[in-house]
């Protein structure tokens, strides 16, 4: 009956979303009087999960699962759910978890609600609030199947400590050839940089920066803040920056704590993709830029003057804090 979560890791260490997922699941578990079981795949040290309320870990160590396979991982989650008699599976909104969630849903005949932004409104009937219409509205979804799956939107709940007594069980699910119809040939990752998905802070540049040669200051601002860099759609269409940095409706979604838009006017498609961010700052010469309508803080000014000053001031601030 325990609630099941998949606690993701990268290179053997938990990703931050794992702790947010655990915090959220614990709160739901307390409200319905049950416990939280986490699946870990090739994570060396799982003890950290006890800080966030996980009661039991099903620890999987398997060479075959060393690179992500949606089908195999979904199969593992299904077997764990069946073994635990789980009625509620909670997944994150990473690229990998969004990929595997519908496969788990079909195999467990479970109703799935993705992009969930807060604790369930009701547990009977089971109703959750989720983002819809590209962050322009919320939608209350009722899940009626016996087994239910929800996908928690990134950065929507937060991380809360809640110490528990963790038991760890080695788990050896059956994985077959059929799970590996997709073969990973090569993984290219930009090293030494924070990814947009994992970043707490994102610094993003738009056409107002006038050319790719001016990105040095965006990168420096990001570096001072420990942030990821991103860009608007026109910038990636002009090939000033790689497509992987494009954020917005047809690019990557951003749900950061802080989003800083430099020289981005704030087209509706851009805002749709970044609106889940908690605090938004805009730096733009044009006071009429639509971004000012959605931002929390704004500076009307020339990025070429404001950003270098901001970098210097932040360096001083960081040295003191």
């Amino acid at each position, binding site marked *: 009956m325990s609630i099941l979560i998949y606690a993701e890791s990268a290179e053997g260490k938990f990703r931050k979303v794992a702790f947010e997922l655990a915090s959220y699941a614990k709160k739901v578990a307390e409200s319905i009087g049950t416990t939280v079981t986490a699946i870990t795949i090739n994570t060396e040290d799982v003890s950290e999960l006890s800080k966030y309320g996980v009661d039991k870990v099903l620890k999987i160590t398997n060479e075959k699962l060393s690179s992500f396979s949606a089908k195999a991982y979904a199969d593992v989650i299904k077997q764990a759910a069946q073994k635990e008699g789980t009625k509620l599976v909670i997944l994150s909104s990473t690229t990998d978890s969004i990929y595997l969630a519908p496969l788990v849903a079909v195999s467990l*005949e479970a109703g799935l609600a993705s992009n969930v932004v807060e604790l369930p409104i009701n547990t009977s009937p089971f109703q959750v609030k989720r983002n819809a219409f590209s962050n322009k509205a919320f939608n209350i979804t009722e899940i009626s199947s016996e087994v239910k799956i929800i996908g928690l939107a990134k950065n929507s709940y937060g991380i809360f400590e809640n110490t528990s007594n963790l038991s760890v069980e080695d788990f050896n699910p059956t994985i077959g050839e059929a799970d590996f119809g997709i073969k990973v040939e090569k993984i290219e990752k930009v090293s030494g940089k924070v990814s947009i998905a994992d970043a707490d802070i994102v610094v993003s540049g738009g056409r107002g920066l006038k050319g790719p040669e001016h990105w040095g200051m965006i990168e420096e601002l990001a570096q001072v803040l420990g942030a990821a860099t991103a860009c608007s759609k026109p910038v990636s269409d002009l090939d000033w920056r790689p497509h992987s940095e494009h954020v917005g409706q047809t690019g990557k979604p951003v749900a950061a704590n802080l989003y800083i838009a430099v020289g981005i006017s704030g087209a509706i498609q851009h805002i749709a993709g970044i609106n889940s961010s908690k605090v938004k700052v805009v730096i733009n010469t044009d006071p009429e830029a639509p971004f000012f309508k959605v931002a929390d803080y704004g500076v009307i000014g020339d990025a070429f003057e404001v950003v270098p000053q901001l970098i210097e001031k932040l360096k001083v601030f960081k040295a003191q804090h």
Partner: protein
Amino acid sequence: MKILVCISHVPDTTSKINFANGDSQFDTNGVQFVINPNDEYGLTRAIWFQEQQGATITVVNVGNAETEPTLRKALAIGANDAIRINANPTDSFFVAKQIAEVAKNGSYDIIIAGKESLDYNGGMVPGMIAGILGYNFLNSCIDLLVDGSNVKAIREIDGGRETISTTLPIIIGGQKGLVEEKDLRIPNMRGIMTARTKTLTVVEPIDASINTKAVKFEKPAPKSAVKLVAADNLDELINLLHNEAKVI
């Protein structure tokens, strides 16, 4: 090579989002509908296969009669024929089940769906079709090449990209990158004229369970006005971000 492209009929991005009937329904009043952008990237990639490798393209939509102009637009862009499954697309599993049935009957080699639609943002339909059919499935697909029955494709991952190999039949959740923005096609007059005579078949849905239901919609609370900080007073911005917003 037979390709099935799933088309969602969604409000244009610039539409005002309002709800009707006690906030239980999307208010379509005055809303212009378009092909879901993620689906349009997929459709354009399918046209590439049609031109380069002689593929035929069927577009499919689960929806009522008012979605037909969107399917006609896909035909005008270059799809060979269209199927409309005559049902209200309320639940992702229901939709996936309908499309899986069409896919099975038509023995398609490639099924392309957008990784998510811009109305409900569920992001589940392609994966569910794959789960039902047991086909190879790649989500967040940004490149797709087919040689005989061998497939090479690229998936966007958090912080990078992953190259994979697999075999047909395959289903992908597509997005920008499959083609670029500049490759998208605006139907020309000839396309629009020929689209009128292309086959659009209407089929009735099969029975499928419904596991989820949208019971209500809400709009976000109105936002308070932006706090402006003078360009020569950036210490104040840092102060606000540190002490008020607590994000640095």
